Every structure is written in C-alpha cells, then in structure tokens.
C-alpha cells in the first residue's frame, strides 16, 4: 500500500521509509506539511499518512484539519507521529482529525500494528464507498420514473427526454429494471376479445347464409 511519510527530520523520514519497504509498502516522502498536503489531495494519493506534528510551512495538525475539511468518501487514515506526548497534545491531535497518535521514539512493531489497523479501516471505507455508489446509481434509475411524464391520450405513448414518443412498455423497460410479459385482463377480455370472437363467428356464419341463395 502507498503510505505517505511526512517529517522534516531526514533521519526519521529515511528510517520510516526503510521500515515501510521492509513491510512491503510503498513509501512516499515529504519534508514539510505543505508537500504532504499536496500528496493527500491527489486523486491517486496515499490512503495512509504518517505525519510529524512540528513541520515547516504547515504543521501536521493543520494537515489533519485540512484533510478532514475535504468532502471525500475515502478520506486517508492519518497517524500523528510526534515527540509531543502530553495528554493535552494527544487530545488536541485526535480532535484535530488524526485517526491515531504515536509518540517518538516509537517501537517499530507498534507502528506496524497500527498501520494494519489503518489498512483495515481504509479497506472498509472503500467497500462502503462502493456500496454507496451502487445505491446512488440504483436510486438515480428509480428517480427517472418519477415526475411528470407526457403521455398520449389515445395511444398512451410516452414522450422521452429526446422528444421521441415511445410505447409505454419500451419506455419503462429503458428506465427501470422492469420487464413485461403480455396477457389480457378480464375487462379487456370481455370488451375486446369476446367482441372479436363474436365477430369471427358471425363472419363464419355469413357465407353459409349467402351460399343458400
């Protein structure tokens, strides 16, 4: 997984990059908060970030706040990794938008375990975002059948968005998951079918009547 490492200390940055590579991740390095923010805004940007708090241009907490202000369905998982370790710092960091907080010096196995938690959350967010997207598509199809539909008073054809008149069946089939099987209702059977049958029988009787002359 692509993981952002943002730290102005080049030794820490390189050490994190080496550890992440050891664990099979792709590390992306940033030496200040502004660069980190650029990476996190990119469409194909890293889904997990390890951020130092005290950095030039934009500090780690500001980066967290900016990320949380973005309206995205798949926000990155943010871990603050800092020497600031007081209780008030931790509270401020988490309230500022960090998902997790780790103090320096850090234990590599603890960081690795927390990254696994991050990967799990990112994976769940992706599934959720995909499901929401599917639901929105379904809802959009349902909404196409709502509203005012222009329909012909005589043949019952419907005028679509392209100003074409379509039969009711084809219009509904095109705008929904519905499909039609054809039958005859009792009222139409009585009104149409029985009448037609009577006509047929009547027509069959007429030649006999004529042949007698």
């Amino acid at each position, binding site marked *: 997984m692509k993981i952002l490492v943002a730290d102005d*200390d*080049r*030794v820490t940055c*390189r050490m994190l990059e*080496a550890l992440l590579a*050891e664990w099979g991740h792709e590390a992306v390095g940033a030496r200040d908060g502004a660069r980190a923010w650029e990476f996190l805004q990119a469409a194909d940007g890293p889904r997990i970030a390890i951020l130092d708090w005290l950095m030039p241009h934009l500090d780690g907490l500001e980066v967290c706040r900016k990320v949380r202000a973005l309206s995205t369905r798949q926000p990155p998982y943010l871990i603050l990794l800092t*020497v600031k370790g007081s209780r008030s710092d931790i509270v401020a960091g988490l309230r500022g938008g960090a998902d997790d907080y780790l103090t320096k*010096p850090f234990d*590599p196995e603890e960081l690795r375990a927390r990254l696994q938690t991050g990967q799990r959350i990112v994976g769940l967010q992706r599934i959720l975002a995909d499901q929401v997207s599917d639901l929105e598509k379904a809802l959009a199809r349902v909404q196409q059948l709502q509203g005012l539909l222009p329909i012909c008073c005589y043949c019952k054809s419907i005028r679509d968005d392209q100003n074409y008149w379509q039969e009711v069946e084809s219009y509904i089939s095109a705008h929904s998951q519905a499909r039609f099987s054809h039958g005859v209702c009792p009222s139409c059977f009585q009104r149409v079918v029985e009448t037609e049958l009577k006509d047929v029988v009547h027509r069959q009787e007429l030649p006999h009547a004529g042949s007698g002359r």
Partner: protein
Amino acid sequence: VGKPVRDRLAPAEDQEKLVPDPALSACVLALAGGRFPVLQELIQLFEEECGEQLTAIRQALREGSASKLRSAAHLLRGAVGNFTESAAYQSARALELLGGNGDLAGATAVFPELEQELDRLHTALGRLVQKSGSTQDQT
C-alpha cells in the same frame, strides 16, 4: 578488602568495558537484521545531522539565544530518538527544555554531558555496523 573489589583491581582498559553501550532502539535493531546498506546510510545521515545541530547549539549558547538553542536541541532529540532512548536522548531533551525555559546557564552545564553521551552512542553504532557487516559477509 573493601568493595567494590572489581573496580579497584581492574586495569584501566577493563574499566572502559564496564561502561555498557547505550541501549539501541528497536527500529535500529530491526534494520540491522537484514538491511545493512540502509543502516549505514541512516548512521551517515545521523552523524551529519548531529554535527549540524551540535554546531547550532554551540552557536546558540555563544549568542545567548534560548529560542535557537531550543530549536536545535529539538531537532537533535528527534534524530537521536531514532537510535536510542537512553542518556543521549534524555540529555538532548533536557537541553530542549532548558532552552524553552530560557535557562542558558543550566544548558551550558548540561551540554558537555550531551556531547559525551553522543560519543558513546556513535561508538555503539560503529560496533553495530561492524557486527552487521560481518554477519552479512558470512551469509
């Protein structure tokens, strides 16, 4: 015979060996296991960083600038923290706090201790590089 016997009888060389190496961090030990070139690169970076920040601290003490002292000690502490949490880290932290409090006299007193602890750390890292290098040669 009064105690401690060993200290009184030990020759000077053995006395040096009695001082244990500072405990190295789990991060360094993790990398020492299988990534020798990375370890060497990190130590190289660390020594450069140490040199820069020690110079900055000396200058801050000469100029009497507590804010510069704090800033340099903070960067040094961050770099040292990658390798150890023992005395060198604690000395850098103390210096950072003293800088933050504007206590330059206290910082001047602590600084030689920091230099001494950093020397010990450098020695320990040198030994680790040697050990990791020879292990890699054998494999």
